[in-house]
């Protein structure tokens, strides 16, 4: 479980996050939504340890971690990470294991990479140059890399996966594909998943828990039916979509 207590963050005079308290449970897809400039990316950076909160604290279950130690059980997937030089897909997935070995990967590291590449269906282009892949394929390779980073051999070890707008730049096929992979990963592994998405229909379909933030504050927090209501959507986005709940999915028609 990840607990954030009364976290605030300001850059200069501008307060980007204002006294947020949140909890995120393992085995669930936790998604953060909100309009542009609401503070979603800042929140994910603070939660993942990239930024130190100005006040408040974040508990991973273990306190005071070094950058190197944190990397063994916390991974972050950003949008559109590109490479400065050509590398094969296999080498990129192996980078996820770098925090776990000193100079040469162990047999276990190699096995994890194989397993992860199969899980994400990237085995077919394992030997290809990453720079020649399509945007959707690239993001899938990075997803495989961050999964390899927190692919624990001991299922008792809890890991944390942060997704900072992972669906940006992906077409609808790859968006759905990505979310299905995420769903499978969440069900199979002992991880806390926290992601930022823009598409409210994706959120309404996949989220087990939603956090709607606006102006650096939590506007609503809970399951998708309680968060995706007309009043909440109107106060955050100034839109009045028609909202339907079908088979547990919440759908919005604008």
């Amino acid at each position: 479980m990840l607990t954030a207590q009364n976290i605030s963050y300001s850059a200069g005079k501008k307060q980007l996050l204002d006294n947020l308290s949140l909890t995120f449970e393992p085995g669930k897809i936790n998604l953060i939504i909100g309009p542009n400039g609401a503070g979603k990316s800042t929140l994910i950076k603070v939660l993942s340890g990239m930024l130190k909160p100005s006040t408040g604290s974040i508990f991973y279950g273990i306190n005071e971690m070094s950058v190197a130690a944190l990397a063994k059980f916390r991974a972050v997937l950003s949008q559109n990470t590109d490479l400065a030089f050509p590398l094969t897909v296999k080498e990129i997935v192996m980078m996820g294991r770098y925090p776990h070995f000193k100079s040469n990967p162990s047999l276990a590291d190699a096995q994890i990479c194989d397993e992860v590449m199969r899980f994400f269906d990237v085995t077919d282009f394992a030997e290809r140059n990453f720079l020649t892949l399509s945007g959707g394929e690239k993001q899938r390779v990075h997803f495989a890399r961050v999964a390899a980073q927190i692919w624990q051999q001991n299922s008792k070890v809890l890991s944390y996966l942060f997704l900072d707008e992972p669906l940006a730049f992906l077409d609808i096929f790859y968006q759905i594909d990505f979310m299905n992979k995420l769903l499978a990963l969440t069900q199979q592994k002992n991880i806390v998943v926290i992601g930022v998405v823009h598409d409210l229909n994706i959120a309404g379909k996949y989220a087990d828990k939603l956090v709607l933030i606006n102006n650096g504050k939590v506007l609503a927090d809970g399951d998708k039916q309680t968060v995706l209501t007309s009043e909440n959507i109107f106060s955050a986005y100034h839109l009045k979509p028609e909202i339907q709940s079908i088979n547990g999915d919440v759908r919005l028609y604008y």
Partner: protein
Amino acid sequence: MYKVNQLTTIFLAIALLVTILVSARYGAVNISTIEMISALEKFFSNNSMLLLNERIFLDIRLPRALLCVFVGASLAVGGVLIQGLFRNPIVEPGLIGTSSGAAMGAALYFVLGAMFKFNTGEWTLPIAACAGAIISTVLVFVLSQSKTVGRSNIVTLLLTGIAINALFMSGVGFLSYIARDPQARSITFWGMGTLSGANWHSVIIVGISTSLCLVLSLRFAKQLNILMMGEDEAIFLGISINQLKWQILTVEIVMIAIATAFVGVISFVGLIVPHLLRMINGSDNHLLIRNSAFAGAIFLCLADLIARMIVRPAELPIGIVTSVVGVPVFIFLLRKKNYLF
């Protein structure tokens, strides 16, 4: 998976050995294989009755070839380090001020040394070169950091490099103008490099620094790979980014400065060699660093051989040869869309 391809390395090692022998053999005077062998025999049996050609081989050709090896390895690996650090294939030690700073430090040592006639140890020249290189490189590094983003924009970096290079090379020009020491007087020496001053003393000093820095560089391979994805990703994968930056910069400066102190500024080796190797074996730094050391050594040996052969019995500054090869590669890289700028 992850079995490192050893083939290229083995091939390069053999090619290097052949290149050293060829480079030692040909020049203003050609030395036969028999003379080379007998010279080595006499060297190891402490026989000082050397014939002229044997003496040329032992005292001139061999140290010169070995200096080429160490300097070439330093320049190429320095290029890999700096390209990895800035995430860009078009930077090299000569472009970000390290070489010109080292030349300035070395020139200052010669001028002041001649002026005040102080006795100096054998490490004074390398230290002076390092001091100059530290000043120029850090100046480029700090001046090119953008205030808003906190990291270097490549255009700013290259332009700052040009400015600082011009400043330090005009300093070298001034010093060689007022210098009495014949070595410092030679402006072509500092500007375009030459290995004509090679002797066993310089081979030992450059050899020690190259070997040490090479071992340290190989330890950065993993971090340099991660750095390809950017600084944020590097932090997520557990790297203390600022510490790493300064460590890499330090190794690069020492490596390049000590080589430059003895041979002057040789451009483009750090650019061409890593680039060619990336085309052959990809960009994994485990392989790239090791192979760059070998390939840089081969490249400089051959460049030196060409510099000695083309106008023999005179010789060209080696920088002319490396530039003729290097500039087209540089322009090709600039125009290539596959890389990010």
